[in-house]
């Protein structure tokens, strides 16, 4: 093993380039799947609130599948399985347009949507019952009451859980490596193979992941402590 030298990796033009593009891909996957998960999470929640039993059961099934099947297996099912039964034209298009990353975003997003919708649902349960009736009495439609009165409150109640799951979503973006996405963990493995500087490469990735996670946790703690969100109920 060579002596510890962080700069040998950081100042090397090829290695630093690989690490930077890996970080960029990690951010793209985390952000893309977060936006997909959050919007789908809201939609699932609204469907679940409808007074229609089969819709409720369908969403419950969706949530149960995504919570009880390992995320890595879900990604493999998307990338190796579902990709294979798509129409040929679509398969070729995906092959030309970084299909691994698209499947990673879709897979992680759909999985995390289940967690987000459950977080929001328990946020909903902690809203005082009168809020719904008051909003309807003031002339809001079902969707209007939802959008302007109930969802904002549910969101505030659900904030700590949402932040926790955002951190796990960010960490889970590393699973994309297993289906060949060139994100940070993947880049680190490549740098390690080329430079034989395992310790340095892992240390850089660990510090980057840790910094981002701690930042998210700190933002979450700060948001939860904000008196404006504490008085939501």
């Amino acid at each position: 093993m060579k002596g510890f030298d962080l700069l040998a990796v950081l100042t090397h033009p090829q290695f630093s380039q690989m690490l930077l593009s890996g970080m960029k891909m990690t951010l793209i996957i985390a952000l893309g799947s977060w936006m997909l998960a959050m919007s789908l999470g809201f939609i699932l929640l609204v469907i679940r609130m409808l007074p229609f039993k089969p819709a409720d059961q369908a969403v419950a099934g969706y949530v149960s599948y995504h919570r009880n099947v390992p995320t890595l297996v879900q990604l493999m099912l998307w990338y190796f399985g579902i990709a294979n039964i798509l129409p040929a034209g679509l398969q070729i298009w995906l092959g030309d347009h970084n299909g691994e990353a698209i499947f990673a975003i879709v897979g992680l997003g759909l999985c995390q949507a289940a967690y987000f919708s459950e977080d929001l649902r328990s946020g909903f349960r902690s809203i005082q019952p009168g809020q719904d009736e008051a909003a309807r009495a003031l002339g809001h439609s079902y969707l209007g009451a939802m959008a302007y009165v109930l969802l904002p409150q549910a969101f505030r109640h659900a904030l700590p859980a949402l932040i926790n799951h955002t951190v796990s979503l960010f960490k889970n973006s590393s699973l994309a490596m297993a289906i060949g996405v060139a994100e940070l963990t993947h880049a680190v493995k490549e740098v390690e193979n080329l430079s034989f500087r395992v310790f340095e490469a892992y240390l850089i990735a660990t510090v980057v992941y840790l910094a981002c996670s701690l930042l998210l946790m700190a933002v979450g703690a700060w948001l939860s402590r904000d008196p404006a969100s504490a008085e939501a109920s």
Partner: protein
Amino acid sequence: MSMLSNMITIIEDNWLLLLIGQYPNGPLGGIASTLILSVLGIVLAFPLSVLIALARLSQWKVLNWPATALVYIVRGVPLLMLILWVYFLVPLLIGDSVPGFVTMLCTLVIYEGAFLSEIVRGGIIALPSGQMDAARALGHSHVGAMRYVILPQALYNMMPSILSQFVSTIKETTLGYVINVPELTFAASQLNNRLLTKPFEIFAILAIVYFIVCWSLSEVANQLEQRIQKQRLGDDPSDAGALQPDAPKMQGAT
């Protein structure tokens, strides 16, 4: 429909591989290995997690700070990254190569130890403070009060959370696939490399098997939680943490 019959054929032809891997001609794998890895992981992580939790609750900064740092580092870094570290460091430390199973087990113990410690810590904090005061008044030392009064009650209340954490552990063993640990996901991927033509069916089977195992265990955790909840509500509300099953233990200690 043909997809379903394909899946049934695949299971009929390969159920042994999915169950125990290539054993006895190779290392134990398949779902047997997944379950053994998860059980060992959580059982070994448990004592570690109690120690971490007690250190985090301690007034002494020498104990408190390192434990807090450990928990935050493990919570902030992807499990995959932790696996790579253990894969790299353990052979360096003991000067010999280790099988993937052991690498994965070490990783799980550290990872689950940190996550379980948060559950244990939460369980201890949730107990009414009168419990500690009463135990101290009865002549227990701080350690004795923890050992005979606080921990037994806290652990009983935490059982559903620990079971949920066990389900998470089962799901996390899949990451061993990346370093070729022989377990269920690895077996399915081997099968996929051999058959080549039925990836959807194989990974659908894999998802279904995990679903059955994890869903049933989650249901057990839910039932348990409801029972404990009911028991707590049945108690005197001012004394919600004190539960009947622990009473003999408390008497035995005094």
